[in-house]
Each structure stands twice: as C-alpha cells, then as structure tokens.
C-alpha cells in the first residue's frame, strides 16, 4: 500500500458547469479501494465491478454505475447512474509544458516559446502584438484526444506567430516569440 505509484493531478470540467476542478488519486488503499481528491475534498472509491464498458463503484458509500460511451474528442462520455454526461479532462501538462517552454522559475529570459508536445493547433488565443502576462494561454493544442494549453513563459508582446489553426506542430516547434 502507500504511495508506491506516481499519480498525475488532472483538471476536469463537467458538462453544464463552467468550473474546472482538480482531481487526483491520492492513494491506493487496497486491491479495489482508492483514496481520491476532487477539488478540496477527499473521497474513498471502492470498485465493485469493472468490465470493458461498465464500472460500478461505491463513492463515499454511495453506489454508482457508469457506462462508458466511446468518445471522438478530448471529451469522455459516460452514462452516470442513467444520466448521460461528458467530462473534459486535462492533465497538469499545461504546467509541464509551461515549465519546459521556459516559464516558471527556471528561466524567464528566453524569447522563443516552443511546443513541448506534438499536436494539432485547436485555437490561437493571441495575435501579433498582443500583450501577454506570464502564464497566459497563447494557444491550445490537441493531441491524442487531449487538449493542452501552451502558456506564455514570461510577460511580453507576442511577435511572429509561427502556427496556424488546424495545422500540426511537432515537439520543440516554435510557436511564437514573446519579447
């Protein structure tokens, strides 16, 4: 038991709600029990049954039955206790990309913002000349059905955007300069 494994904290957004909440596994308590954290609350999930498209679990002593429906986008579609719901999932990859792209404490000096992952450009949130603050989203990439924001590595002005919506970028491709 204990924290033998590394669990990634993710961000989740549920249909009909604008709120983006953190979710993560804190600990595997036993073969079929997990301690998880959603927003600021901890829950115990006891898995009763799983197969290829159904998961049944008790969440803080309440039973839930979930059927998975195939998803075509970065969205996951479930039928939760009979209600059709979709959940958008996003890892903290934003932060990882952000750090690697020169944001965070590490640097801050470099001008070139690069993509740390390969992906398709879903949206560009700035234009040439846009003033951005460190951490502002510059563009959003989609890769393997997941969306991830690429954020400004420092305060500055966007110059020479090298990407186009709908096009693909490779890892380390330049996205723009921020001067």
């Amino acid at each position: 038991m204990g924290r033998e494994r590394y669990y990634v904290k993710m961000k989740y957004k549920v249909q009909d709600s604008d709120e983006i909440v953190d979710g993560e596994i804190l600990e595997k308590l036993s073969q079929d029990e997990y301690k998880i954290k959603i927003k600021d609350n901890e829950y115990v999930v006891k898995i009763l049954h799983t197969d290829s498209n159904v998961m049944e679990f008790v969440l803080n002593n309440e039973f839930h039955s979930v059927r998975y429906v195939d998803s075509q986008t970065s969205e996951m579609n479930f039928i939760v206790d009979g209600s059709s719901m979709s959940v958008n999932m996003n890892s903290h990859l934003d932060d990882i990309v952000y750090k690697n792209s020169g944001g965070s404490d590490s640097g801050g000096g470099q001008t070139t913002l690069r993509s740390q992952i390969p992906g398709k450009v879903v949206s560009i949130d700035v234009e040439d000349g846009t003033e951005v603050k460190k951490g502002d989203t510059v563009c959003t990439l989609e890769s393997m059905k997941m969306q991830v924001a690429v954020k400004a590595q420092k305060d500055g002005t966007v110059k020479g955007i090298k990407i186009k919506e709908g096009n693909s970028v490779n890892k380390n491709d330049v996205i723009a300069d921020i001067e």
Partner: protein
Amino acid sequence: MIEKVLIANRGEIALRVMKTCKTLGIKTVAVYSDEDVNSLHVKTADESYHIGEAAPAKSYLNQEKILEVMLSSGTDAIHPGYGFLSENDDFARLCEKNNINFIGPSADSMNLCGDKMRCKAAMLKAEVPTVPGSPGIVDDAQQAEKIANEIGYPVLLKSVYGGGGRGIRLVTNDKELHEGFATVTSESIAAVGKSAIIVEKFLEKTRHIEYQMCRDKHGNAVHLFERECSIQRRNQKLIEQTPSPIVDQAKREEIGELVVKAAEAVDYTNLGTAEFLRADNGDFYFIEINARLQVEHPISEMVSGLDFVKLQLDIANGEPLPFKQSDLKMNGYAIECRINAEDTFLDFAPSTGPVPYVTIPSGPNVRCDTYLYPGCTVSPFYDSLMAKLCTWGPTFDESRTKMLNALNDFDIQGVETSIPLYKTILNSEEYKNGQLSTDFLKRYDMIEKLEKDLIQDRKEKQIPAIASAIMQSEFYKSKVKSQNSGDTDGISTWVERGTM
C-alpha cells in the same frame, strides 16, 4: 367454450392476452411478421404462424391471411388486442361468418361505434350528453352562425373529412365564423375534393376522463369506474390514473349510469371504453366509444381486482356477468406510465433499434407489461409503446412514489425513452395536486422543467462523473503498464490516457 385463441396482434398486448389464456388453460396462437421473428409473443404462444412482411398492411392487417391461419389451426376465437384490426367491423364480420368467436362487440355494434355521427345521434337519443354543436353537417355559414349563437362562442368549425389540424378552425365571433367557414370549406375541397362542416363548442382546459364499460350478451351492463387520461401529447395518452382526482363517488355514479345507457344505446357487448371530455365547469361530454380492450386497462384491473381478459373471454363465451354494479368497489389508487421509445427533445420522435440490455422493474404492486427482453429490438414498423408500467398503492401518493422508484429502476439501453419526462411530471406540484388537463405538458412547461431537471441531475452527479474519469484513467494506465512496462512519467501517462 373457447379453447384456442388467435391473438391478432403483437408486442405487450399479445403477451398480456396470452398470460390470461395460459392461466385458464386456453391454447394460444400467435401471428408474426418478418420483422417480429425475434419477438416475445412468437416465443410465448403455443403455436406461432408467420403471416407476412413487416408493413402492417402485409401482415397484422391482412384479414385473409389471418383468417387462413385461424381456419387451418382450428382456432375457435380471436382476440384482436388494440390497434390493427381491433375496431375493423369488416374483420369482425368475417370472423362471425366463419364461426370464429370475435372477442369484442358484434360487427354491427362496432360499425355503429365507429361512425362518429351515427354514434352521436344514438347518444343524443339515449340522453347521454355529447359536446354541444350541430346535430350533423350544417348547410351553410348562416346555419353555423345560428348554432354558434345557441351554444355560445368560442366554437370549432370542423370538416368531417379533415384531420390532424387541417380543416379545423377556432372562431370566437360571427365575423370570424364567416371567414373561417370559407377557409375550412376551401381547405377541405383542396384536400379531398369535397366539404362537410360541423360546429362544435370549443372547450378549454378539458380533462380526458373515460369509463370502462362491460356488457354481457344477455344485456347486463356495469361500468368498471373511470380513468383519467389527461396527460397527453398530440392526443396520445402518456400517463393514466384511476380514480380521477376530480371525480368523487357521487359523480362516479352519475356518469357511470350514463355509461351503462351508452353501452345499451349501441347494443355494445364485451368490454369497451366510453370516453368523455370534462369541461372546466365540471360538465361531462361523451366523445366516443373505444370498441376494444384499451392500453390502459391494467390500472382498472388493479383497483377492481378483476382480470379483464378473463372477463372478455367469459362474455364471449356467453356467460352472464358474475356481478352487479353494487358488488363492485374501487380499491386504492393506480397509475400507468406508457414507456415509449421516443426522444422527448426531438418532438417525441421515435427512437428505434436493438435493446442490448434492459432491467424490468418489479416488486409489490408494481406491474410491467412489456415485450422487452435483453437482446430484443424496437421496430420502426410499429408503435412506440415498449412497456406499460403500472403501480398501485392504498393512497395516491404511495402509488406515485412507487411509480417514481419503478421508473428509476427501469433501465432500457439502446433507445431513448419517455422515462425522464415522466419523472419530471410525477415530481411536479401540478401532478401531485391533480391539476390535470389535456394540455398539461404545455400549460405547465413540462419539457422546460425536464430540461432543468436533467441539468440539476447532472450537477448532482458531477463528483461521481469526475471520479469515473479519474478511475478510468487509472485503469487504462494500469492496463497499458501491465502490457508494456514502459516509463510512466507525466507525458507518457497522459498520452496513454489520451488514446482511450
């Protein structure tokens, strides 16, 4: 004595009829179309005969083919169910001619019930009130105006050939009446090449209340109480209940006496239903007789303790009714929800296809008449009624909460259903208070309420939904790891997860 019954129908009603026949030791014969090879009624009957293609005209409406099956299989009686040939007096006559006991009224009585104008005339003669209006077709706009002034505006002008909203006009004064008369006339001529207009009082906020009636071949008649079927969409009933919240014992008896008169007026035999509109002022107006066993008969069975199919068979056998009106007592409260395969948000459009899994509700005083089973198919060729879910309780509220639980238990995968709408309706204050009317859905914005309920429902399920997403990721990752023990740093985990 009836020993072998052909059920000229499909779906839940075919199964319902068979259940009673089997209990009574009567052999059952099913017929089926190409579309229904996998249907439960085929599997349940003692004998099953294929009668043609999926389209009803080529199978369930094919009188000659069905007669052929009856004659070759040695069937001595036929139960028509509802719909299809159930109110076809030609078919009833065909059966009579071939010495097959048609379980229902005589062909003559059925013909009279089916002819709205003659039936109305018979009721007027028997002093059963019908919706005020012209006794028949009016000669011209002048005569229409005269009648409108007698019965009072607003009135409806209806082409007897029209239907489905066309050839019908609501008018509130003489001027509108003259304009409307011209429009309806031209619409009718445009549509069918002729015109014949009747005038009828327009009733607002009406309730649909109907009476189960029952008359044997010796002329003994009783009513088996009322049902309120006001919750409808496009004139199709969705939820029925008995007793009606607006009918007290005195009213029940008063209208019940009219119902017995109505049955006599058309020399009705066997079970049938007299439908009434109840105006907001409390007046009841006869509208028509349904000359067959109705969809919603189970709720009347629940409060009367009778088996209506058995009663039908006994009457068809010539037996006298085993009770008088005074022997009959209503017991408790029953509700029926018609579980349709339809998408409420697509204007109730049919939703068809395979049903890979279904859980049928059960429990004390829960009854579910259905053709569903895991692996069955909801066909686009026939009506959208998949199941009739009925509950009984000693109080209205127990019946209602039992229904809500049964609706929650009813898991039908693969097609959209009317279940969510029914939950919203049954939870509404208007329904709880018995504020029923045929425009209930619109009057109380039920579709909008449903939308809000669904959003609220999803809001309440946010945490389990996120927990599902978290656990799905975990399980997917575990699976990948165990197959292929590569590195699992943040990015690769994410990529694995992304491919789900």
